Each structure stands twice: as structure tokens, then as C-alpha cells.
């Protein structure tokens, strides 16, 4: 099997798993999860083969030194539209982390959904499971977590999702990338609304889909415009082609739209897709609500893969977005937009995260903020830094989310055990979990330190440091914003760890929390290894990552010289350590029932942050209420019932009115009487008179005949 065939086959095992589970094995839980995990394993294996082969090739990414294969799919006159697969350095690196995180999350889901536990007392498909009562040998009954009722369905959905992500990563053109993009959008809807009987889950699913759709519409416009300008959507043909890029950069956009070049407009449109998909401000509102889904979903979709797809796409598009730009020149409009929106998002989300109490919400806003980092990095031209941070972030954010799932499971166990009905996700109810859940604690700590950028030993440090270094060198304003965001990141991370693991248990549930099973803790350990070790490929002294991934672009981007990197590195060490220290100090004495110390310090600002800057309320008033009014009142009441039904009713009444009129004034008098009876009576009248000719007397007949004959005779004689 050639390497290209293997690449074609990578997305298939999860798709097959989806099909098999949906069609056949839905009833058997063990079989379903085995198929799903097996499929994820197969794709992981194939991906590793591909990546290691790619690493072995020198100057991978140069012309001819990529793995590509395409088929002619859509005949278009002389040529055909081709679709296929491409593995260049960027997609090889992406494939690496996607394969690992997907496999880890699949394994984790087995434990998360309580495989092996009994069925719940009154569990209902569509609602989260809430416990089964078991009796031990002494007759004591207590409640334990119960198995998810829709167990197999979950694996089917994440199988489909994995298929979408793999398709996106291996594709060689924007169209199949978009296909994978949309499949993931669909699965995100299905999985956020997995517990469909919960109204909040349903609403969150719709919100996610709608918000990302807004972005997708503009993205599709960008794709169409790009196709119209270049006649192709193949990555190598557009982004690795100097002549095409130059043409796009110098041609003005349609109607000279805002004075942009074609490349600028396309770039902006495509970037709007990323704003939606990667939950950048202003389309960020769906991501926190997406925490309604089960935690593996949050990990996979909203940390490791789907939101990363948005950033992956803009990284892919970087040659187009930066067409006409070179180091030191003014930023192109798309890059400027990305720098601005990315930095705003990074700071904005970080400010909200410090005021959240739900363990998953903090991580959600953290994700939004980190994605902002990546977008801002790309905006200032730090291509490699953005890609590096994407990959590192995927590892430690997935780790953090899975860890939070483990925490929640531990708390739920405590809730069930003690019947102490507190919210297992609220950090204010936790505390002291380091003793109860040591493995979770260690791995979560590693992930948190990576997020905060703890110096040297964490992957997050190296990636974030590279971004800050690039910003420091080229865009000081962006550096300031990102530095403040980094401080806040460290602060809320320390806050989270302190509230959750340190100190004393604040509720009975926290007291009785329990460590999770190996199916949940093994992925945590594996990801923790990556969270620590992966960063070492990207140090400023010997940036292997830079050399490898830099081959994706036509011109290998220049690495920052080490001398320029020193000052920002010192600054980032200071920021991270001070943020962590501040968070620990403020919260280490927090006790149950107290107000949040930050609330006291910030006052009304804290309320503002806690309510997410009221963006949800603004959007509700600006968009949701008017649409609801439009559909309920304008379209339904006025147009449909009023106008359309009104027309129908009027036509009906008209018909009812015309009917009797026609009958009484036309049908009866004219047709029946005049024509029908009338013609009959005319015939009768004539008949009565004409029959008198029939006298029965022969001589009369002869006389008549003769009269006529003589008449004719005379006429013949007289006339000519």
C-alpha cells in the first residue's frame, strides 16, 4: 500500500464505525465502543505511519516533496475539478495531534459514560444518567453512578465527528475541507444537544449551529470568490504558487469593495468563517453554552479539534491572507483584522474566565482566549508560532477538559453517595480533591501549568513564549494586550486549581469524591506526557518545529534570532509566575459560603465579568427577539394567516358567491330554460305546424310535388 492510499484511508475507520453502530450495533454497548475505539486506533496507527514517513523526508513540503493524490471528480468541460489528499508539513503536524487526541478522547468516553455500571433507577434516554441504587452484601443501599442510556449513540456521533476532522486535515482543497468543516458543525450540534431532553442543551446546540453558520456563510462566499478568481481550490495550486498569489494580491476586489484587493476580500471572508468556528469575538457566545454537552465532547470539539479547525484553516490560508506582505511592512487588511480580533478575544475572554465558577466554563473561556492568541499571532505574521501554539494547546486543553470531566465524575460520586444535592460542576463546592483524586490532580496541574505558561517544563511555555516574542519584536501593542491576557490566564488557572484541589473539601460531596477508573485516567496521563514533552521541539535555540513546518510555505519564514527572544522570554516567565502566585494567594484561604474575594475587590466590574459582559443579552435583544417577532408575527400571523390564507378564504367565498349566481341567473334560465326547454319548445312549435303537411291524401302530395316541379321548370325556362 502506498503512502497516498493510506492517507485516503485515514478518515474511513471512524466513518465505518458510525455506520456500523447506527445501523447494527446500537443495542450492544461493548460492541459499539469496541468498534469506535478500534476505528480511532486504526486511524491513529495510519496517521503515525504517515507522520513518521513525512518526518523522514528532507525538505518535506518543497515542490514534489509532499504526499499528494487526487482524482478527477467533477467534469467541467475540458478539465475536471479534482479532489484529493495532501500531507505537507502543516497537515502532518496537525494529523499528529488530531490522531492522539481523538484516540485518547475515545478511550476516555468509555469510562466517562460509566461503562460497566448498572442501569439507572429511572434513567431516561435524553437526560444525563443520575444514579442507580445498589445493595451491598449487608443490605446497605447506596447510589452509584449509572451507565449512560444512549451509550452507543454517543460513540456513533463522535465517530462521525472524527471522520469529519480527519477529512478536513487530509484534504488538499478548500471544498473537501469545507465538507469536513460542516460535518463537524453537524456533529457539534448533535453532541452538544446529546442530552436532548434538557431544554438548555437543545438551546445550546441550536445556538452553536446558528452562530457558526453565520461564519460559514461568509466563508462559503470567500471560497466561491476564490474559485471564481483562480479556477481552482487546490492548496498547492493557490498557496504554493507565487504567480497566483501575486495576481490575487494586485487585482482589486469586486466593485473595489472597501479598496481591498481580491486576496484581501477573500481572506477577510474566510477569516469570518474562523471567527464563527473558533469562537472569536464577536461570535464567541456559543462556546461556553456548548459545555452543556458531555465532557468528552467539550474536550474533543471545543479544545482539540473543531475549534482548532478554524485556526488550521487560517494557518493554511496564510499565504493568501498575507499576500503582498513581507516582514516589516504594514499588515494586509486580513492580517490586521486577525490581529485586532485575536487580541481583543484573548483579553476579553480571559477577563470573563476569572469570574466564572463552573469548572468547565472557565476552561471554555480559556479556550476562546487561547484561540485568540493563535489568531493574533497569525495576524502579526507569526506563522510558525501560531501553528505551534495550536498543537500544544490541543494537547493541554484536551488534558484539562478530560481532567475536569474526571473531577465532575468524582464529585458526582460524592453527590450520589451522600445525597448531598449540590452542583458537581461548581468549583465553590469543591476543594481538597488532591487527596481524593491524586492522579487527576497531578495531570490537571500539569495541564494548568502548561496553560499558564509555566517556564521551561511545560509545552505551553514554549509556544506562548514564541508568540509573545514575535509580538514583542513586530507589534508592541499586540504584545501588551497578549501579556495582560497571559497574566489573567495564569491567574484564573491558579484560581481554578486552588479552588478545586487545594485546601479543604467544602461540601460533603467533595469529601466523598473518588478517583476515576483507568479508562479515564490513562488518557490523562498520556496527554500529560505530551503537555510536558511536546514543547521541546520548539525551543528558541533549536526550533525543529520551525524547520519542519516552515516548509509548508513557499518562502521558509525566518526564525527570530535568539537575542531578540531573550527579553520577551524573561517577561513571559515573570508574567506567568506572578499570575500563578496571585491566583494562589487570593484563593488559598477561601471557605465555603464566602463571597468570591475578587468580587469584593472589583465590585460591580466583577458582576459585569460574571455576566459575560452581557453579550448574550445584547445578542438576544438585537437578533433573537427581532427574528422571533419576524417569524411569529410578520411571517406567521400577517403573511401566512393574513395574506395567504386571506387570499384563499376570499377565493373560496368568491366561489361560493359566484356559484349560486351562475346557477340562478345563467344555468337555470339560460341553459335550462332558454336553450334546453326553449329549443325543445321551438321544435315542438314547428313540428305542430309542419305536420299539417302530412294530410295522408295522395293527391295533395302529388299536387305539392307538381307545384314545385313546375316552379323549377319555369325558373329554368325563365332565368337563363
Amino acid at each position, binding site marked *: 500500500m502506498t503512502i497516498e492510499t493510506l492517507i485516503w484511508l485515514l478518515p474511513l475507520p471512524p466513518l465505518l464505525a458510525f455506520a456500523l453502530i447506527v445501523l447494527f450495533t446500537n443495542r450492544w454497548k461493548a460492541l459499539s465502543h469496541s468498534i469506535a475505539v478500534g476505528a480511532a486506533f486504526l486511524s491513529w496507527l495510519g496517521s503515525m505511519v504517515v507522520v513518521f514517513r513525512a518526518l523522514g523526508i528532507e525538505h518535506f513540503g518543497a515542490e514534489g516533496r509532499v504526499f499528494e493524490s487526487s482524482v478527477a471528480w467533477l467534469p467541467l468541460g475540458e478539465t475536471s475539478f479534482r479532489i484529493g489528499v495532501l500531507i505537507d508539513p502543516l497537515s502532518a503536524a496537525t494529523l499528529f495531534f488530531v490522531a492522539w487526541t481523538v484516540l485518547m478522547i475515545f478511550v476516555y468516553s468509555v469510562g466517562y459514560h460509566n461503562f460497566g455500571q448498572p442501569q439507572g433507577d429511572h434513567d431516561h434516554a435524553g437526560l444525563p444518567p443520575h444514579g442507580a441504587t445498589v445493595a451491598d452484601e449487608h443490605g446497605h443501599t447506596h447510589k452509584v453512578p449509572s451507565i449512560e442510556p444512549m451509550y452507543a449513540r454517543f460513540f456513533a456521533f463522535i465517530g462521525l465527528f472524527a471522520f469529519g476532522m480527519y477529512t478536513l486535515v487530509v484534504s488538499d482543497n478548500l471544498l473537501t475541507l469545507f465538507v469536513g468543516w460542516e460535518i463537524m458543525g453537524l456533529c457539534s450540534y448533535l453532541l452538544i444537544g446529546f442530552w436532548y431532553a434538557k431544554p438548555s442543551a437543545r438551546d445550546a446546540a441550536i445556538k452553536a449551529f446558528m452562530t457558526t453558520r453565520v461564519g460559514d456563510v461568509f466563508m462559503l462566499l470567500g471560497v466561491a470568490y476564490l474559485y471564481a478568481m483562480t479556477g481552482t481550490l487546490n492548496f498547492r495550486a493557490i498557496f504554493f504558487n507565487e504567480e497566483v498569489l501575486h495576481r490575487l494580491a494586485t487585482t482589486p476586489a469586486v466593485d473595489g469593495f472597501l479598496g481591498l484587493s481580491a486576496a484581501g476580500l477573500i481572506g477577510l471572508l474566510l477569516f469570518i468563517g474562523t471567527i464563527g468556528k473558533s469562537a472569536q469575538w464577536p461570535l464567541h457566545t456559543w462556546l461556553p453554552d456548548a459545555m452543556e454537552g458531555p465532557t468528552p465532547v467539550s474536550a474533543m470539539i471545543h479544545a482539540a479539534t473543531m475549534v482548532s479547525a478554524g485556526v488550521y484553516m487560517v494557518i493554511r490560508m496564510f499565504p493568501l491572507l498575507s499576500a503582498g506582505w513581507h516582514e516589516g511592512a504594514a499588515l494586509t487588511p486580513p492580517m490586521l483584522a486577525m490581529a485586532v480580533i485575536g487580541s481583543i478575544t484573548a483579553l476579553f475572554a480571559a477577563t470573563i474566565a476569572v469570574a466564572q465558577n463552573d469548572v468547565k466554563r472557565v476552561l471554555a473561556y480559556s479556550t476562546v482566549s487561547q484561540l485568540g492568541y493563535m489568531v493574533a499571532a497569525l495576524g502579526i505574521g507569526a506563522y510558525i508560532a501560531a501553528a505551534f501554539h495550536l498543537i500544544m494547546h490541543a494537547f493541554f486543553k484536551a488534558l484539562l477538559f478530560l481532567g475536569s470531566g474526571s473531577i465532575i465524575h468524582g464529585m458526582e460520586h460524592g453527590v450520589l453517595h451522600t445525597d448531598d444535592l449540590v452542583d458537581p460542576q461548581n468549583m465553590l463546592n469543591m476543594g481538597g480533591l488532591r487527596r481524593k483524586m491524586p492522579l487527576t490532580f497531578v495531570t490537571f496541574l500539569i495541564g494548568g501549568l502548561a496553560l499558564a505558561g509555566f517556564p521551561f517544563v511545560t509545552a505551553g511555555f514554549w509556544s506562548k513564549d514564541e508568540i509573545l516574542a514575535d509580538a514583542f519584536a513586530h507589534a508592541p501593542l499586540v504584545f501588551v494586550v497578549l501579556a495582560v491576557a497571559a497574566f489573567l490566564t495564569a491567574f484564573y488557572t491558579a484560581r481554578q486549581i486552588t479552588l478545586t484541589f487545594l485546601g479543604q473539601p467544602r461540601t460533603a460531596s467533595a469529601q466523598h469524591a473518588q478517583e476515576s477508573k483507568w479508562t479515564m485516567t490513562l488518557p490523562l496521563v498520556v496527554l500529560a506526557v505530551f503537555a510536558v514533552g511536546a514543547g521541546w521541539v520548539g525551543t528558541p535555540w533549536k526550533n525543529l518545529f520551525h524547520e519542519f513546518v516552515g516548509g509548508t510555505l513557499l518562502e521558509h519564514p525566518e526564525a527570530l534570532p535568539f537575542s531578540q527572544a531573550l527579553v520577551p522570554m524573561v517577561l513571559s516567565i515573570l508574567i506567568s509566575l506572578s499570575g500563578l502566585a496571585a491566583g494562589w494567594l487570593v484563593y488559598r484561604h477561601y471557605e465555603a459560603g464566602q463571597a468570591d474575594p475578587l468580587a469584593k475587590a472589583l465590585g460591580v466590574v466583577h458582576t459585569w465579568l460574571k455576566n459575560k459582559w452581557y453579550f448574550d443579552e445584547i445578542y438576544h435583544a438585537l437578533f433573537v427577539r427581532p427574528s422571533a417577532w419576524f417569524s411569529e408575527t410578520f411571517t406567521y400571523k400577517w403573511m401566512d394567516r393574513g395574506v395567504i390564507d386571506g387570499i384563499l378564504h376570499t377565493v373560496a367565498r368568491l366561489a361560493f358567491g359566484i356559484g349560486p349566481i351562475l346557477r340562478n341567473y345563467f344555468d337555470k334560465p339560460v341553459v335550462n330554460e332558454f336553450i334546453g326547454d326553449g329549443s325543445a319548445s321551438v321544435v315542438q312549435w314547428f313540428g305542430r305546424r309542419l305536420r299539417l303537411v302530412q294530410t295522408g291524401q295522395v*293527391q295533395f302530395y302529388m*299536387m305539392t310535388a*307538381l*307545384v314545385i316541379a*313546375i316552379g323549377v*321548370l*319555369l325558373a329554368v*325556362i325563365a332565368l337563363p
Partner: protein
Amino acid sequence: MGPLQIIFLLAAALVLGAAILVVTTRNLVHAALWLIVALFGVAVLYVLLNASFFAVVQIVIYIGAIAILFIFAVMLTRRIGAKDIGPQNNPNWWLAALLALLMLGGLATIFLSWPAFNTPLPPLSNQVDLIAALGKSLVTTYLLPFELASVLLVAALIGAIFVSWERK
């Protein structure tokens, strides 16, 4: 005015006079007798036309059979005790007379406009035996009409018997 012409005129006058009496007399038996007279006159005319065979046939058939038949019919359909009272002609006889006159006039006009109206008598060749020729033609050239005529007579015979058969 040659002798033949005088004979013609006398015969014609006889026929026309008898005919008028046929159609006007009250007494039906008289009408039948006047019919016989008219038929005789016509026979004379046939002789004038060198159709001597026809003259004989006229007398034998018409007068000898048909006129006798008429007399029998008159007898058989006479109501016993009924006198021939009342007019024998319809109330509309004047219209009939008018029409007859018009017919005559019309016919005369047509004849007059015919160029060969006054054809003189062409000579007969005395080689041809008229009666023999007629007889021969009836069984050769005109065999079919001859046979048909005989069939017709048989049919008329049977028909007449059948129609007047009294069923008891």
C-alpha cells in the same frame, strides 16, 4: 293537308276528347268506356307511326285486358245503393287544372326551343322487317329487360292475388 294529316287530326281530337271525358264524367262506368275510346284512338296513332305491332298490342292488352279490368274494379267497388251523387272532383280541381295547363305550357316551351322540333318524317328502309327486328332484339340485345319484364309480370300477378286474397 295530306290525308295522313287529316287522319292524325281526327284521331288526336278523338283521343283528347275522350280523355277529357274520362277525367270529368261522374259515372265511373262511363269513364271506363270513354277510356276504351281513347285507347282506340291511340292505337290509330300507332299505326300512323308505322308501329303496327304496337297498335295491335294496344288493342289486345290495353283495351282487351286493362280496360276490362277497370270495369271489373268499378263494379266491385261500387257501394250498393249509392248513387254517384256529389261532385266527382275535388274542391281543388281548379288548382289541378291550372297546374296541368302550366305543365302543358312548360312542355310546349321546351319543345319549341328544341331545334329539331319540326323534323319531317324520315323514310323507312323497306329492307328491314320491323317486327322481326323487334322480336330478334328482344331475345338478344334486350334479353335482360325482356326477362325482367316477365319477372315483373309474375311478381305483379302473385302480388295482386296475394293482396286481394280474402282471408277467412
